[in-house]
């Protein structure tokens, strides 16, 4: 018993060490969206390219699509743009949600980098609609919506080639094939 007590501080040290070491490799931003497996919220937002045209939730539903939150102010959005173009080329409909941006800047962004989006919604600063209801707290963020309008996958961060090939495309195919 006495021997054991002598080792107690060492054992505590090892336990705390393991705990803290594990913390080093954990990503605090990697947490599930509260919207996962919940319906896409109702919304009414204008199109980016035409403020007179309003889009609602029902306009988007019907097939599996990706909803990509972006802004010309967001450096990581430039990084993932090629991957969005690639997925669009593979036939995945990607709806853009232009977030806290200004129209002229957004137009310039799309003109320079190419436009992979089937359509873009416009939610500028001061408007709290779809992006707020989706719990978006930065850009880029990407949601996968199934045919019934349920959020099936969420990524807060940059889409990388590996993520496209190993996670996002398999998820898209899975929900496209779901009956």
């Amino acid at each position: 018993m006495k021997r054991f007590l002598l080792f107690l501080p060492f054992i505590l040290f090892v336990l705390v060490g393991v705990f803290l070491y594990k913390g080093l490799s954990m990503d605090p931003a990697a947490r599930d969206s509260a919207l996962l497996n919940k319906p896409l919220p109702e919304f009414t937002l204008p199109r980016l390219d035409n403020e007179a045209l309003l889009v609602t939730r029902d306009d988007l539903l019907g097939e599996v699509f990706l909803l990509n939150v972006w802004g010309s102010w967001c450096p990581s959005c430039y990084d993932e743009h090629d991957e969005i173009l690639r997925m669009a080329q593979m036939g995945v409909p990607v709806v853009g949600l232009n977030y806290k941006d200004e129209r002229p800047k957004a137009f310039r962004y799309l003109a320079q980098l190419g436009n992979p989006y089937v359509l873009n919604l416009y939610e500028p600063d001061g408007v709290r609609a779809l992006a707020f209801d989706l719990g978006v707290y930065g850009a880029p963020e990407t949601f996968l919506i199934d045919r019934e309008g349920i959020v099936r996958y969420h990524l807060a961060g940059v889409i990388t080639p590996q993520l496209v090939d190993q996670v996002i495309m398999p998820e898209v195919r899975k929900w496209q094939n779901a009956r």
Partner: protein
Amino acid sequence: MAKRTLILLLALLLMGVAQAAIEVYDFSSEENRLRFQSLGGELRCPKCENQSIVDSNSPSAYDMRQELFRLLEEGYTDQQVFEFMKARFGEFIMYRPPVRSDTWLLWFLPPVLVVAGLLLVFLLARRRSDKGKDETTADRPLSPSERQLRLQQILELERSASSTTNSKESS
């Protein structure tokens, strides 16, 4: 030069403070203003990980403050406000997470550790005083009878000592 740089740096530090103070909310009642402050302090900014939404300057915290203001003015209860925010940003934003089987460790480990620590200190202290009792009684105050005994012994010693010196002198 160095002084000037320092002043400049200090002025830069003040910028955040000045910016945070600009927002103005027109509360319909004093109660709503107080609730805004307390609820805002309970909601964690989803972007910045360890700031409440009233502390943070991030755009998402700003949006949440705006929305919190709107909800309070519309008469939402505290519970309804939390549900509203949780439905969007998840449990992450609750500074006080619910007590559930997977949060037991979070809630109960600290008090358990405090109690265990106090117990350890208590046991160690008792063991030390037990040991003291075995080896010598010197640390403990004497009881009246013991005191008499000890006094007796000292007087005895004194007497015998003085008697020997006396005998030396006389011889």
